[in-house]
């Protein structure tokens, strides 16, 4: 990522520390999301509780990232690619924290669902889960590898996830009408689907930040298909 060392070694150390914190935060967030969704699919309350417990550490890391970022801006006044990396890392941490919040939300809904007999409609969530988690991983990869093409590809996949969410919502609403006894359960699944859709939105933001950090290009609020 960094072509050559700065004359000021402490600047390199500060940038490396910021980057390590992003990677650690991304790792924890991915683990939390994985535990929450497995807690749902495997009906495992312990996994759900672990996901909820992870959130506090991720919150602390977000605060640390902000502090480190401000410290770098203050002490080193970065410019060019250094400036873009610092700004993007700070924005990325905010998105990671929100993904972790969505993981917590999924874990809480899963715990409620686990108290009742299993609903076969949980399987409707699986394609959304796969899409959201792959967008999250690729968004993070795009940032780490400064891969503009991958970043743009992630952004374009968000629409597909939104459509999946709409389909899941429609089917679950139909099921609510057919089987009002399970209304609470279906409602919890709708909230899980919405949380996964939000994960996709944050992955999109992360991919956009990756493109900005790598190429100084602001691709937010653009029609990327037209751009290509």
């Amino acid at each position, binding site marked *: 990522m960094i072509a*050559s060392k700065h004359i000021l070694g402490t600047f390199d150390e500060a940038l490396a520390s910021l980057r390590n914190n992003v990677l650690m935060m991304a790792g924890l967030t991915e683990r939390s999301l994985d535990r929450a969704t497995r807690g749902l699919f495997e009906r495992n309350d312990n996994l759900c509780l672990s996901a909820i417990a992870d959130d506090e550490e991720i919150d602390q890391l977000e605060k640390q990232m902000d502090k480190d970022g401000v410290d770098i801006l203050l002490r080193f006044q970065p*410019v*060019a*690619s*250094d400036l*873009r990396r610092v700004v993007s890392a700070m924005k990325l941490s905010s998105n990671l924290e929100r993904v972790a919040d969505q993981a917590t939300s999924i874990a809480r809904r899963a715990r409620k669902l686990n108290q009742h007999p299993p609903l076969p409609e949980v399987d409707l969530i699986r394609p959304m889960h796969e899409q959201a988690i792959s967008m999250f991983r690729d968004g993070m990869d795009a940032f780490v590898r400064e891969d503009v093409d991958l970043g743009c590809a992630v952004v374009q996949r968000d629409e597909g996830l939104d459509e999946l969410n709409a389909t899941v919502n429609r089917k679950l609403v139909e099921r609510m009408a057919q089987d009002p006894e399970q209304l609470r359960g279906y409602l919890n699944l709708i909230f899980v689907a919405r949380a996964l859709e939000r994960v996709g939105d944050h992955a999109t933001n992360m991919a956009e930040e990756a493109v900005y950090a790598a190429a*100084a290009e602001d691709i937010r609020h653009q029609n990327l298909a037209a751009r290509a």
Partner: protein
Amino acid sequence: MENVVMETPEQTVMERLELGTVPPPDAEIPRAHTFEVKNLSIWYGEKRAIDSVTLDIASNAVTAIIGPSGCGKSTFLRALNRMHELTPKTRMDGTVLLNGEDLYSSAVDPTIVRRRVGMVFQKSNPFPTMTIGDNVIAGLRLNGVRNRKLLNERLEKSLRMAALWDEVKDDLHKPGTSLSGGQQQRLCIARALAVEPEVILMDEPCSALDPIATAKIEELIHELKGRYTIVTVTHNMQQAGRISDYTAFMYIGRLIEFGPTTTIFTNPREKQTEDYITGRFG
């Protein structure tokens, strides 16, 4: 008849952008150029200090020249008012146009050029034997101005423009050297302004000043650019980012990159620029 696109308050910004009635935020606004420098090369004896530099300097804007020591930035600055010619054994090639006029034409008097293109140096250099007031109007007197009323008017106007009037108006009879370093530098700027130049060149004007005096000079530069074209050399990257509209990066006598300051400091095109401004070589 000209095709006029009507704009209504109801139109969204996006609609207006599409109609072309609002420039997009990153649009480059075309500007007039005070200097047009073409293929400028300068030699000190056998050593080439500037190597085929071509650069247009925008009017009523601040252009900063940055680069490591010995890259030719001060020589380039001095070439804009022929001050480099004061160094023995200099030779130049190329053209420098000031508002369309060739500065190096045989018909042009270098002293007139230096009146049109004023200069402020790294270290403030008020005339040590002169009072504050006499320092400001020294250039006018040298040019034969004797009208006391005009001299007084120009004295006050220049000191006001240099943001120094309020601090020295009761001490005009005191020696220029009695002022603080920052005040002396503003006195030198007032002296440069008194002869009503078209351009002000500044060669590291704040490098010998404390942060407060530096801030005052930077604020002054910001105010002066409404009336003058300003070209400044600086080693302070943050200062270049703060005060300039355009930045030129020079290295070993060559112009490596030139563009809007925001672009140079967020997304430089050339790797050498990036490496220099991010502190990877110097």
